[in-house]
């Protein structure tokens, strides 16, 4: 996928799926999705058995990314989290993830270390801009894109989203993703003329809203897998109990 933005402009409302293990990545690749996000939370669950992205180091994540890069047939979106440290760390993390196969990188606006949370903290605009500038400076391929995930609408409100988006445009960021929103808030944001293309995170109950360029899945496949795993575990336990009773 040479230009995912062109694809999304022609196919507004596309859901970009997330993967955290090789099987999910392969299944999605076979279905010809235009892009796949290698989600840090899902990867932390897969590699570390931990439900927090902040526990996953850059070297652990990028090794997995390189393995998936060998399998990719469309755009690979890498999760830069909150830059894996300071703006200087963000600079080198961006280089590492781009060289490991990323076509698009997503930097979030949490302080380091980023956490998997429904109520994340927000870093200062200065820290976010430092990291965004470092990331744009680090990119080698002019076709690689930087998206910023703004997770703090509950902290800094509409005004904060508007300001951060303006500032990020000045840095040269390509798009923003809104996370942790109320549906009404997202609809209002979509109505505004934000200076950068707007995407949002997606879960099955997400509303259909015009003006959202694309949706980033938060891990439906992993969640569904977990439910079937639990059902299978239940069955194994029941089988074991039945055998014990005999």
């Amino acid at each position: 996928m040479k230009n995912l933005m062109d694809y999304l402009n022609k196919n507004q409302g596309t859901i970009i799926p997330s993967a955290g293990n090789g099987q999910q990545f392969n299944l999605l690749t076979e279905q010809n999705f235009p892009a796949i996000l290698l989600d840090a939370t899902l990867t932390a669950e897969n590699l570390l058995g931990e439900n927090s992205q902040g526990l996953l180091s850059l070297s652990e994540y990028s090794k997995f990314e390189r393995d998936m890069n060998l399998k990719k047939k469309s755009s690979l979106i890498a999760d830069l989290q909150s830059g894996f440290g300071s703006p200087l760390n963000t600079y080198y993390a961006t280089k590492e993830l781009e060289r490991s196969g990323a076509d698009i990188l997503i930097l979030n606006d949490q302080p380091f270390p980023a956490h998997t949370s429904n109520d994340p903290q927000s870093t200062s605009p200065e820290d976010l801009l430092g990291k965004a500038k470092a990331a744009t400076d680090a990119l080698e391929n002019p076709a690689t894109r930087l998206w910023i995930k703004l997770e703090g609408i509950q902290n800094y409100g509409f005004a904060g989203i508007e300001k951060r988006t303006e500032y990020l445009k000045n840095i040269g960021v390509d798009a923003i993703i809104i996370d942790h929103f109320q549906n009404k808030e997202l609809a209002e944001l979509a109505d505004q003329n934000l200076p950068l293309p707007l995407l949002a995170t997606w879960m099955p109950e997400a509303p259909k809203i015009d003006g959202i360029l694309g949706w980033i899945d938060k891990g439906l496949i992993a969640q569904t897998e977990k439910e079937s795993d639990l059902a299978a575990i239940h069955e194994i336990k029941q089988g074991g109990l039945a055998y014990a009773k005999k």
Partner: protein
Amino acid sequence: MQKNERMRKQFKDEVFSGHIVRMMVAPDALAAKIAESNGAQAVFSAGYASSASALAMPDREIADFGLILERAREIINAVNIPVFVDADTGYGDEQNIPRTTQAIEEIGAAGMFLEDQTWPKRCGHMDGKTVEPTEILEKKIRIAKASRRHDNFLIMSRTDARAVYGLSDAIQRSRRYKEAGADLIFIEAPRSYDELKEIHDAFPTTPMMANMIEGGKTPLLKAQELEKLGFNIVVHPTAMTYTQAYAEEKLIQNIQQTGTTEGYEDKMITFSKFNQFVGLDKINARDAEYSPENMKKYMIN
């Protein structure tokens, strides 16, 4: 042109230039940077040095693919000269070859070699080597060529048959490897100047590599002499590892004897020169560039 393609093209151009490429085996990223800054045209990330550096163990294929790949990647990322990678026997059978090839290619290597030793292999100048039937490496080379994603990523065949069946067999095998698609040829451990000449005469138009290992089975020739013989690459596989080990051994012995490093500084790089060499000033400057104060200029509507 991005770095990976630039390095592949640079290496190919140099190898086919008619002049010899001086390639240092670097045990790690720091050694590679030292080689680069002192004029090496290319670096080789090879099993003997990586095994010694990472595990303090001999080259008996105990260092696995993951370790070798990661070491090569660190070296590639540290320098701006082409890096060639030792792919041993491909780290398995023919099923491993596509992943081995593509993984090495994707980290930005300029090329790699595959060899015909029986697994687990050993250093080419060690005794007790055995080799696979020729068909095995022929097939691996065909698969590697079909798997590579860029034509400029060069595949070299290496045969260790000289030690097992003699030079004629090694040349015969290499002819078949070339027909299978090898871009470059390497016959390991020839034993004389005449054998080196015979090797080149057998492949007058295919780029060849000569391996100059101290204490090995091949006479040590100068790069200029090898160039006159028609070789296109000379590699020094152990010199940096041995020099590093020698210098560190001397240092520790001195500390044990004197209880201090005082008086030994003239055998070391200085604190400030080393920091300069690894780019501390540039990194500090970059760090300052992203300070909160400097970001204020972007905070306008």
